[in-house]
Each structure stands twice: as structure tokens, then as C-alpha cells.
């Protein structure tokens, strides 16, 4: 269906163009964000801003640390499986074209097995967004499209890994490239902002001795 030249273009040149585009736009976004003013904590500190930021970055790995994950452990499992699947699908866009030697059949199966739960939980998330009034209320077309398009991405990743023929590989890489072009404009970019938010929020809580808690002020 696709010529060898086109398959090669989709796997290599197109990916590099799309990745460059993504990086460029993120650099611009980060630059814009960094230029905004910041009211720094400049009262004498009670705790450590660094400890607070680290605690904030790691809280997702400690489901017991937040009531929202402690009370709804299913949510945390869903969150974890979904993001692990997304990470593996992204990793595959690099390993398949640039390190084909490591993509043996067992590795491809392992990747597919890790992406499959993400695909399943993505459907659950989509169903929840449609059926639960409190989630539907806050949802925008961007939310539905982001979820649906990630589902397509997961599906093509699984097919490309398991069937591993030029047709599915090309579809997968075309979807990946389209995704990379769209992501900077979509809410899927939340993963970039997470690093800023965790730093800002975490360091404030750390400085004030809130999280991690400081037993007594030493001044």
C-alpha cells in the first residue's frame, strides 16, 4: 500500500520534523512562562523549598500521601497504567526506527502488553467523561478529542508492535507525527506544565514547613 520510500519518510524524516516542531513550540511556551513575574517566598523560611519540590514531584508515586488517591485507589492504578502505557508508546516511536535491533519479538510483545491496559483505561476515562455530570461539566471538545486521539494512538501502537508490517508501522508513525504537531496546542501538554507547577507549589509548601512537615521552627 505504501512505497518503501514513504514508509522510511514516515519513520524517520517526518518524526524528526514533528519532534523539532514540538520542541520549538515548547521552548517558546517555556520562555513565555518564565517571563511572567513570580512573587517569591522571602519571609524567613521554616522548612526546605528543595525538599518541598521533591516531595511534590514524588507524591504521585506515593498514593497514600494524597486523600484523592488513598480514597480512590482505583483512580491511582488507572492513572499509573495509563501513563505507563503512554510512556511506552512514546518510547516505541524512538526505539522502533532508531534502535530496531532491540525490538525483538518478546520486547514488542512486552510493549504491547504494557500499552493494552492504557488503551482499556482510556476507554473507561472517555466513558466517564461522557456519563459523569461533574466531569462532563468541565469537559471541552479538546478533552474529548485528546482522549479519543490518544486511544487511536495506543491502538495503532499495539497493532504496529504485534503485526509489525509496513502498513501498520506507517499508520502508527503518521498518527504519531500528527500527534506531535497537535500536542503543543492541546491539553495533552499538561505534562510539561506539571514540572513547573510541582516546583512552584512544592517549594512554597516546603519553604513554609507544610510539606514535608517541619516539627519546630529553628530560628
Amino acid at each position: 500500500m505504501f512505497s518503501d520510500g514513504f514508509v522510511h519518510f514516515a519513520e524517520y524524516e517526518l518524526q524528526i520534523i514533528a519532534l523539532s516542531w514540538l520542541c520549538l513550540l515548547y521552548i517558546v511556551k517555556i520562555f513565555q512562562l518564565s517571563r511572567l513575574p513570580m512573587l517569591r517566598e522571602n519571609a524567613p523560611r521554616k522548612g526546605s523549598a528543595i525538599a518541598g519540590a521533591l516531595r511534590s514531584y514524588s507524591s504521585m508515586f506515593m498514593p497514600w500521601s494524597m486523600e484523592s488517591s488513598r480514597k480512590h485507589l482505583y483512580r491511582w492504578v488507572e492513572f499509573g497504567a495509563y501513563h505507563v502505557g503512554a510512556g511506552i508508546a512514546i518510547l516505541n516511536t524512538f526505539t522502533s526506527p532508531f534502535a530496531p535491533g532491540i525490538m525483538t519479538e518478546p520486547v514488542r510483545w512486552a510493549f504491547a502488553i504494557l500499552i493494552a491496559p492504557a488503551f482499556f483505561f482510556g476507554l473507561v476515562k472517555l466513558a466517564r467523561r461522557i456519563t459523569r455530570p461533574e466531569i462532563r461539566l468541565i469537559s471541552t471538545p479538546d478533552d474529548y478529542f485528546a482522549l479519543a486521539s490518544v486511544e487511536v494512538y495506543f491502538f495503532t501502537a499495539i497493532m504496529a508492535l504485534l503485526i509489525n508490517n509496513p502498513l501498520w508501522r506507517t499508520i502508527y508513525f503518521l498518527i504519531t507525527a500528527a500527534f506531535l504537531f497537535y500536542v503543543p496546542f492541546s491539553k495533552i501538554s499538561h505534562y510539561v506544565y506539571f514540572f513547573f507547577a510541582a516546583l512552584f507549589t512544592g517549594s512554597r509548601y516546603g519553604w513554609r514547613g507544610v510539606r514535608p512537615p517541619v516539627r519546630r521552627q529553628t530560628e
Partner: protein
Amino acid sequence: MTTELAEKELEKKYNKLVGTAASNMCAHCGWCIDSCHVYQASHDPEVSPVAKAEHVRRVYKKSHDWMSKIFPSWTGARKLTDEELEKWVKLAYRDCTLCERCVVNCPMGVETPQLIAAARAALAAQGKAPEILTQLADMAISREENAELYKDFFLEQIKEIEKQLQSYMGTPEATIPVDKEGVRILYVPLSGAHTILPEAIIFNAAGESWTLSMFEASNYGVFLGDSVKAKRIAERIINEAKRLKVKEVVLTECGHAYTTMRWEAPKWFGGPLPFRVRNIIEVLDEYIRDNRLKFDPAKNSEPVTYHDSCNLGRKGGLLEEPRRVLRAIAQDFREMTPNRLQSLCCGGGSGLVAIAEWSEDRIKAGKPKADQIRATGAKVVVTSCDNCRHQITELNEHYNLGIKVTSLCELAVQALVLPQPMSATSDNH
């Protein structure tokens, strides 16, 4: 109608925190939804943290987000209208107490209260803030402008409280100094003897070098979201502390007053203040550690629980200090569940307690806290915030909790063992 002033204020508030929260940061996952006490009490999707923040976020997106500028309907972005601003009044002042419980339960760390605070600022700029908050902020400012007028009346009141102090402590040497230069502590109370007399007993019993502030600690400019008024109100205390050359300012048991002076004021004034800022809880904790005061916990034998004020705890970092004090002064201290960082807001914070027309909503939003208190089986609820105290007192009446609500200092005084010469007549009280 125009929204020009509100829009200008919103732009002024667009800093790194707000910018991050207003960008594509929120994944609309809904994890924060049931962390909010207002949502827990009503299960109304409109009052979930994310739903409230979305109103403000979408307006910011219209002018700052690439996609929203071109295809606003794709992200729900919209321009600020007078109608939208009207909706913000309730979501910003009634349905959110800026308690930050949603922040500590967000997997991404989205600072939803920053967006709501920006909405408050915009409303205040546009003249749409609740009238009572504006009046209370203006009154605080006028008190400094007319300090001489107030002074005689204030001193008369303090003389009356001083008589009670001397009677309690059994010595005419117990005093409430006002306007005294060069002392260690400037103590800033709220209006009313309940935040003066217990602290005066504690300071006198500990032999502290202190003086009483002419001003009250509360800062309605902060609740209002009006940074100019908030700075002006804080400045009164800063100027007084500088004039009296004190080493530290100690704030009474008031959540927002502490967070404002301890953490926010140094940001507003460009650096650390020229004196230390502490809460009376920290001072009491220090006295206990240094054995400057003696307590008999048997005098507080009823089961006691502690309500963490959001401002003191989650926003201020005073989580362990009140607990150490309680263990020293009460026989049966029981924790609420959850507590500390995950403590539930009482429902009356951020000025809501002062707004009479929303008292029914406030009492409804306090139901999760009332349930939490009942579950402890405690007979006494201690809270170190006057807003919380007022709200929990009303929750007690409405939900028949059968509790007594008090402050940490009042409970401490109840268990205080006075130094011998001072205790001569204290048994009569």
C-alpha cells in the same frame, strides 16, 4: 456595563502561578472534586474546585492560550462579560474559601485558589465584591488614620480588661502594657477581650517583655482580594512595630492574620520584615518547651479535639505546634480524621463568616466538618482561628454537636498553674 477594571486586574494577577494554572495544566481529571468541602456538602457539580476554576481559567485562556485565541469554542475559552462577572461573585466569595485542600489533592499541583483569588481581585476592582468585606477593610484603614480618636476609648477598654487580669492573677503587678517601646514582643489581638485577656495572663505568668498593639490583626483586604487595601492594613502593624522597636510581632489566634503577616507581607514589601513574626501558638509552645509555664492537664479532663485552620496549617505550616501545646494542657486529646495537611475547612473561611446573606450556604458547607467533629466524641473543640471558631460555634448550634468551642490560649489558661504569689485569688475564678 463594562468589565474593563476587572480585566486589567486579571492581567495584573497573571504571574507564574496563575499562568501555569490557567494554561493547559489542568487535565480535567476530576481528582480534586471530592476534596472540596463545599462539593462534599452539596454534590453540586457546579461547585467542584475544577468547575469553579474553569470560569476563570477560560477567560485567561481567551487571551493567553494559543489554541483558545484561534478556536475558543474548542477549549471553552470566552471573553469576560458582565454576566460572567456576576457568576464569579458567588463562586469566588461564597463557594470557595481558598482553603487549598484541592491543591494538596491534585496530582498535578494545580493552584486552583490562585485563580479564585485572581477572580476576587477582579471583582473588587470592578466594585462587585461583597459590601461588608469592603466596609470592614475600610474601617481597619480608617482606624489608623484616626488613631488619636480611637486611642482614649481603646485605653479605657484595656484598663477594664487589666482589672480582670489583676483579679485573676491576684496581683496588681500584672499589666497590659500599651505603646511601650523597646519590649521584645508586640502582641496583635483581634477586637474583643477574648483575644486579649488569656494572652495577657500567659505573658504575665511567663514574665514576658511585651506590649499590646493598638490595631487588630485581621486583614479584610486579603479576603476582599484587594492588594492595595491588604498592604495598607498590614502596614499599620509594621509601622507600629518599627516605631516601638520590638524584636517580634506575635499575632493572636487568627489564621489569615498569621499567614498574611508571616508569609505574604514580606512578598508585598519586597523582603523580610525587620522583626520576627510568630503566632501566639508558637510562643506558647516555646514557653512549654522552656518550662516557663506550668500546666495541670487534669483541669482539662474532657475529651478535646483540634480543628486545623487552613490558614495556620495548610497555608501557614503550624501543624505540630498546637498539638504539642494540647498534649501539655489537656488530658484527653483526640485527632479528627483527616487532619493536618488534609484537614477539612470549617466552611467559614476567607471572610465568608462575615457575609450574613450567605450564612445558610456556609452552615451547609460546614456539614462535613460537623460530621468529623461528632465522630471524635470530643466535648471541646479547640481552634486557633476566630473565623473557624465563629463557624464551628454555629455548626454546634445547627447540628446539635453538644460541644464547647474555645481557643488554645483560653484552654491553656484553664490548665495554667500560676506562680505562687500570683495564684492567691485565682481560685475564685
